[in-house]
């Protein structure tokens, strides 16, 4: 996997074109961390980036339908990190799933739905779009994480 880096205006600084395979979770993590670390992103923010990326891609691999290609984009403007995860599968909005109900006991605690809840809570913005049309239609999840 070779990252496609571009500095052109309006283009994300890191673009990864990946197959639908569980190994891309770790491959994309290593690439995104390798991109952000030299730019001065702090350890706490980096952990949030890693968790959010892991949750978005693992959720896509486990729950997406007819996904053959995944694109990960990352950019950093000195204040916040923008991450975009796109796939070419059937329409699927992972952010539509509501957070688990609050719980105060082990018996009530949910065993599912924690990943997307983490994405919402660790980011300052998260949105889903269905972009393109026909055979080129893609699911796009965009998140922003403040560096602090």
């Amino acid at each position, binding site marked *: 996997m070779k990252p496609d880096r571009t500095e052109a205006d309006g283009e994300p600084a890191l673009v990864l074109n990946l197959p639908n395979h569980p190994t891309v979770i770790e491959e994309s993590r290593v690439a995104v961390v390798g991109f952000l670390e030299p730019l001065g992103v702090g350890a706490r923010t980096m*952990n949030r980036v890693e968790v959010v990326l892991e949750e978005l891609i693992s959720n896509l691999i486990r729950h997406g339908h007819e996904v053959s290609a995944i694109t990960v984009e990352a950019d950093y403007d000195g204040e916040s990190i923008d991450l975009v995860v796109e796939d070419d599968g059937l329409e699927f909005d992972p952010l539509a799933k509501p957070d688990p109900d609050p719980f105060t006991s*082990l018996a009530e605690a949910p065993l599912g739905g924690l990943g997307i809840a983490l994405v919402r809570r660790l980011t300052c913005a998260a949105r889903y779009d269905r972009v393109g049309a026909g055979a080129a239609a893609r699911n796009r999840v965009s998140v922003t994480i403040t560096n602090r």
Partner: protein
Amino acid sequence: MDMQFTDVGGVTKAVLGGRLDSFSVGEVETRFVANIVPKEQPAVVDLSDVSFIASLGIRMLIGTARALQRSNARFAMFGANDAVMEIIETTSLTEIIPVVGTEAEALAVVTA
């Protein structure tokens, strides 16, 4: 992900090390549960050497604690670093599983 299990005076002590991500959870979850739940005794988990945790790791811990509770045995964790602790707190895990600083505190919690 590394795992070690010992018995500390009737308490199962599990030491985890490495990344508790979706890949490693798939590899270790069965062994983790099998070394804790069937013993039907309190358990503590040392997170000192865990560098990363995501939702499937949280789910593994909740599932194990819940199964142990059916035997009326307590479950606690200790030693989480700042990054791991932020994720534990963000998922409200601390509402249902004690997460303390030291092994002594954890042992005291589960044997009280």
